[in-house]
């Protein structure tokens, strides 16, 4: 081949490689930026006085007297609103005509106000969600719009979906005694809610109310941690022992070994939902390791899922250990088992660890296998050492249920983003720990 064309091919190949790397890096940035950006929103936001009140009431954080003073100041600012409402209600009570015209709109305004500022003075709702106003200033802005504008749908064009029409309530209530409310509320909302930049690091360590309206995601983090921990505990020793058998003891070409290897490879390709169903059928229904879903059943299922990964990476790592190490050890009179434990495994450790950590990330993020075997949306938050036989929260599952089954999912988007962010963070953290560990061990091995 001519030099020029060889160079051309060389260059275009280099260009292609660079292009694909840039593409991958770009994709990564595109994926990670919103996750990190929005996920941070769960931790960094403008928290209102309601947020601080919730923290004090439900979790006992914050200084009582400071918050009491703040709440008092906020109530002072809100009083005007409640006075206007009370006066207008009096008017409605007195006039049937006014009632007929405004009663429905009035209820909507009141509902909006309850969501924005919390229950009216004297009311004590049953649901936690209704006991407090908006804890976040960004959500409060949205709720404010609900109070200021009436939302109706225009169905006049039958070929189209209904069009949303917003009518300012100021116009609706024009001329009534309630009219000033709609100018006072936006003007003085800041005094009523007292937003302040908040670093809510307790998002990661607080438990949550059952519907995640308030509090953090600690139970989910803990559940994920437990599931991963037990999974690794089950899968790694088994995986490494299997890998040792396959490399050191099994005779190449033996039919059973070939069969086992094929099975492992097949297992690695089985869809995770199948593992989930298998876990339900086998661990829970047949072996009865627990009554219904449990951490034990879930981590056993996950262990099965990652076992092929662990075996394959450990096998490769063990195979990569120079043959001369083994010869040297055997020639010194060491038995095979001692050679494996003292020489081969330590030398294979970096590779084995990488495999373990990659499978850890997989185990932490898998949803399908735990749907039927371990995860629930409402569970007792686990204590640090509580039993294997209980079901648990788990991050991937909660992300899934929050966006598919939650009643007021729009209200808690930030929690959802926070969860995704945490999950990604956990996996990234795991990986970087593995990389560091691997680098350290390799350095030690290389001398």
């Amino acid at each position: 081949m001519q030099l020029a064309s060889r160079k051309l091919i060389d260059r275009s190949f280099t260009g292609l490689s660079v292009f694909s790397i840039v593409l991958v890096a770009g994709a990564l940035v595109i994926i990670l930026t919103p996750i990190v950006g929005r996920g941070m929103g769960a931790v960094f936001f403008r928290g209102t006085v309601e947020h601080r009140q919730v923290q004090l009431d439900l979790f006992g954080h914050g200084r009582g007297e400071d918050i009491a003073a703040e709440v008092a100041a906020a109530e002072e600012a809100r009083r005007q609103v409640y006075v206007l409402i009370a006066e207008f209600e009096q008017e409605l009570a007195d006039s049937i005509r006014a009632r007929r015209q405004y009663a429905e709109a009035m209820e909507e305004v009141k509902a909006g106000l309850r969501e924005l500022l919390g229950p009216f003075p004297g009311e004590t709702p049953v649901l936690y969600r209704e006991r407090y106003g908006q804890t976040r200033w960004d959500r409060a802005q949205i709720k404010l719009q609900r109070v200021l504008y009436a939302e109706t749908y225009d169905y006049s064009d039958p070929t189209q979906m209904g069009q949303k029409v917003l009518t300012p309530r100021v116009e609706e209530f024009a001329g009534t005694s309630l009219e000033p409310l709609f100018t006072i509320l936006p003007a003085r909302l800041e005094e009523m809610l007292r937003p302040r930049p908040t670093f809510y690091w307790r998002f990661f360590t607080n438990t949550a109310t059952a519907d995640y309206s308030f509090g953090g995601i600690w139970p989910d983090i803990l559940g994920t941690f437990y599931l991963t921990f037990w999974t690794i505990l089950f899968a790694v020793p088994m995986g490494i022992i299997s890998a040792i058998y396959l490399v050191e003891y099994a005779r190449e070409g033996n039919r059973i070994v070939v069969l086992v290897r094929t099975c492992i490879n097949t297992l690695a390709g089985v869809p995770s939902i199948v593992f989930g169903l298998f876990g339900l059928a086998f661990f829970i229904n047949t072996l009865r390791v627990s009554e219904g879903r449990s951490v034990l059943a879930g981590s056993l299922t996950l262990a099965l899922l990652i076992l092929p990964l662990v075996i394959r990476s450990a096998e490769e790592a063990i195979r990569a250990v120079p043959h001369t190490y083994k010869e040297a050890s055997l020639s010194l009179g060491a038995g095979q088992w001692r050679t494996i434990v003292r020489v081969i495994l330590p030398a294979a450790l970096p590779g084995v660890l990488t495999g373990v950590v990659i499978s850890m990330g997989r185990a932490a993020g898998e949803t399908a296998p735990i749907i039927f075997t371990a995860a629930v949306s409402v569970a007792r938050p686990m204590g640090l050492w509580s039993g294997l036989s209980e079901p648990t929260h788990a991050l991937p599952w909660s992300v899934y249920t929050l966006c598919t089954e939650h009643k007021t999912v729009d209200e808690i988007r930030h929690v959802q983003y926070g969860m995704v962010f945490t999950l990604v963070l956990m996996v990234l953290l795991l990986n970087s720990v593995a990389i560091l560990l691997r680098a350290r061990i390799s350095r030690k091995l290389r001398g």
Partner: protein
Amino acid sequence: MAVMTGNITIQSCKPTDPQPSTADWKAHVRAEDFSVFYHRNEAVKKVTLDIPVGQVTAIIGPSGCGKSTLLRAINRMNDLIPGCHTTGLLALDGVDIYGPQIDVTALRRKVGMVFQKPNPFPKTVFDNVAYGPRIHGVRRRAHLAEIVERSCRQAALWEEVKDRLHENALGLSGGQQQRLCIARALAVEPELLLMDEPTSALDPIATDRIESLIAELRGRYTIAIVTHNMQQAARVSNLTAFMYMGELVEAAVTDRIFTNPQQRLTQEYITGRFG
């Protein structure tokens, strides 16, 4: 043997004429009609050879002549190769190495080995030398330190490594690594030391040091060394065995092999006509 020229007959297993100086040599390893097979392929063919106690025996021959295979048969390293089996007798101190009663790890403890490429473990210098004693039950740190020092001194390595015992052995130079491997082998106090082309991966200076080390170790250990390098065999050994195509062509006192070989094939090999 199709490749043999007509006038050469190979007398495998025929002991060479007794020499006055070899009369009192006691066999440490004795091979009688010993063959090694890789599946059907006979790599070592009916070899009869004595490796005498306390002497340096060199095994020379062209590549693929079975010299390494023979050497590795003595500590049963060939067991690692699937399909490898033996016939005939190979005895260490009169005990059949391939006998049913033999404990392979005990055998390997008695028969140390140094490999072609230096192969220290990726551990510290100390842990490398202490590896053998540790697996044979030495636990006390002071005792281990003593063994390490003695072995390193024997391997002429102590002065170079005494200040870096706790550094990784892979940081040593190639020649140092090979001497470390010798020290590691000596640390389990073997009776016999097998060396499989121990200097083929080393530069001339390191080679020289290993050769003088072998000279120092003569008498204390029985040494069997496989080498490509005929000058090396002439320099370090008392006894030389020449192998060709799996058969032992001639084994005799080194001086005689190099000055007055009995077989034409030997002569052709040592004069460099093939090999």
